[in-house]
């Protein structure tokens, strides 16, 4: 595998994203508005010294800020570049080149999310400062390490789902419906709206079995030190297993889609 070409794709995507930096900053600032509302609400809901879903006030506020940041870098969504390339036939150029289409767009997404992640830190930082003393840091080196590893796997896992959702363009003339579901249902299922442990038990258990929980809820739990070494290892293994399973599924869906694309004329 020639990694250099994908590294270069990432770099070009960073440069392209940089030409829209104002747009990025704006979307982040606007995106922060619901976060502010959420933090104000939870600040009132959880009283000093109280615990909810096993978290104190500072931890709850930290949870929402951390999941928000994870959401920016790893949320599965319908990737417009892929769907428009499939629909409008620009996929042809990718098929002409010696390259792997899935890796190409992973590289693009990495490149366009990287500036996001960094700007995102800049936007998240004032919130972290605003809750000051009660901001929760990972309690141990293990939690730091586990969080780093799980956040990385989150990105890969999130991308596998993004790729899968985007490939629906092979069969659907309009992918807005899929995007709507992805943008509203996934945050809920991943724990960005509510910590999963606040759902009724059977629902929480079901949600935790899905890959979405592994993208936001799990890394946030690791960050807050709510899961121990064994659970961290098990969670990382589950993330890896989901990545492998989705990789295989994507390879199959891609082949089916390509067959269709090549049959209908692109």
């Amino acid at each position, binding site marked *: 595998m*020639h990694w*250099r*070409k994908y590294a*270069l*794709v990432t770099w*070009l995507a960073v*440069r*392209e994203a940089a*030409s*829209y930096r104002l747009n990025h900053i704006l979307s982040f600032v606007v995106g922060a508005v619901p976060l502010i509302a959420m933090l104000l609400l939870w600040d009132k809901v959880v009283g000093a010294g109280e615990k909810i879903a096993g978290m104190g006030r500072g931890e709850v506020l930290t949870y929402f800020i951390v999941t928000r940041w994870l959401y920016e870098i790893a949320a599965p969504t319908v990737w417009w570049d892929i769907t428009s390339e499939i629909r*409008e*036939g*620009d996929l*042809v*150029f990718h*098929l*002409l*080149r*010696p*390259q792997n289409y899935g890796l190409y767009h992973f590289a693009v997404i990495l490149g366009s999310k990287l500036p996001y992640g960094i700007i995102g830190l800049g936007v998240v930082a004032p919130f972290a400062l605003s809750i000051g003393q009660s901001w929760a840091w990972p309690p141990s080196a293990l939690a730091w390490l586990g969080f780093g590893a799980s956040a990385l796997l989150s990105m890969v896992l999130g991308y596998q789902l993004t790729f899968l959702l985007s490939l629906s363009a092979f069969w659907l003339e309009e992918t807005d419906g899929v995007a709507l579901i992805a943008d509203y249902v996934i945050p809920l299922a991943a724990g960005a709206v509510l910590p999963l442990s606040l759902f009724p038990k059977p629902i929480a258990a079901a949600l935790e079995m899905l890959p979405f929980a592994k993208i936001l809820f799990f890394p946030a739990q690791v960050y807050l030190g709510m899961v121990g070494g064994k659970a961290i290892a098990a969670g990382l293994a589950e993330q890896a297993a989901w990545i492998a399973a989705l990789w295989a599924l994507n390879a199959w869906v891609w082949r089916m889609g390509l*067959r269709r694309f*090549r*049959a*209908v*004329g*692109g």
Partner: protein
Amino acid sequence: MPTISVHNLNKTYRSPLRSPGIKATLRHLVAPRYRTVHALKNVSFTLQAGEAVGYLGPNGAGKTTTLKILAGVLFPDSGEVKVLGFTPWEGRAQFKKRIALVMGRKGQLWWDLPAMDLFHLLQEMYEIPQSDFQKRVNELAERFRVGNLLTTPIRNLSLGERMKMELIAAFLHRPQVVFLDEPTLGLDVMAQHEIRSLLRAYTKEEGITLLMASHYMRDVEEICDRVILLDEGQIKYDGSLSELKKRYSPMREITATLKGHSPTRCDLPGQNWLVGADGLRRRWQVPRAEVPRLLQALTAQCEIEDLTVREPALEDIMRRFFEKQAGGENALA
């Protein structure tokens, strides 16, 4: 062995039949109906190394479909295709590295980045050594006269400049076979002319095998020696351009502007060849073989200020050709 060989190529599409109205829409949701479109019917031809062939036909004739199949992007329903010894749709990297497809309607350049960035990416993808790459970019940029634009974002380039960058991107890895689909589409006359002469010189020098679909007959006249005419998915003519002209345009048009004091009765001997008269201007259409004799008679008879003898444009020939096809006349094979 020919560089490109196509044997009995067939391709059908299924396109949904949709009638307007709520009832029809609902019915389509439950039981969609389709109509089968035969994009290509038993298409066969070969191209030798270094040949430049024009691929012509009305919209929907199957030109783009053929190019995409030959470039390995589409599957055919049946038929055998070999390009440089490869079956295109198997998608071998070795095959991809030796061909290029340029489409006038679409581009591979990144809108917000300069062309040079894409060239670097293509360098990595096609594994072009650094020394060769730099030489190649300089050489192509100089030839296409865009050396000063390599670091300008694509969105700030004109359509013609963008097309030149697309061509450089396609030629960077030294493809031996190039497929062009309407390379001058939407360009102004100057840019069209420039792109054509660049393409002609470049493909000849590099010995590139070229198959070019176009609507602009000038493209084909200037770049290709041979043409394949396609209509409704079938080949109707495959041969030299001069042969096509000979067969389908037996007439020449003579236009003369008479001097003011010339007798108003001024015509060609024989039958009535006149097709237009406007003041002192006359237009006649005459058989090719008769031209010298008739010109002599004309100049002997009246004083002439200006005189032109014109071959009908390839456009007219094509129009006549496809009209005859539609009229049910036998095709030339």
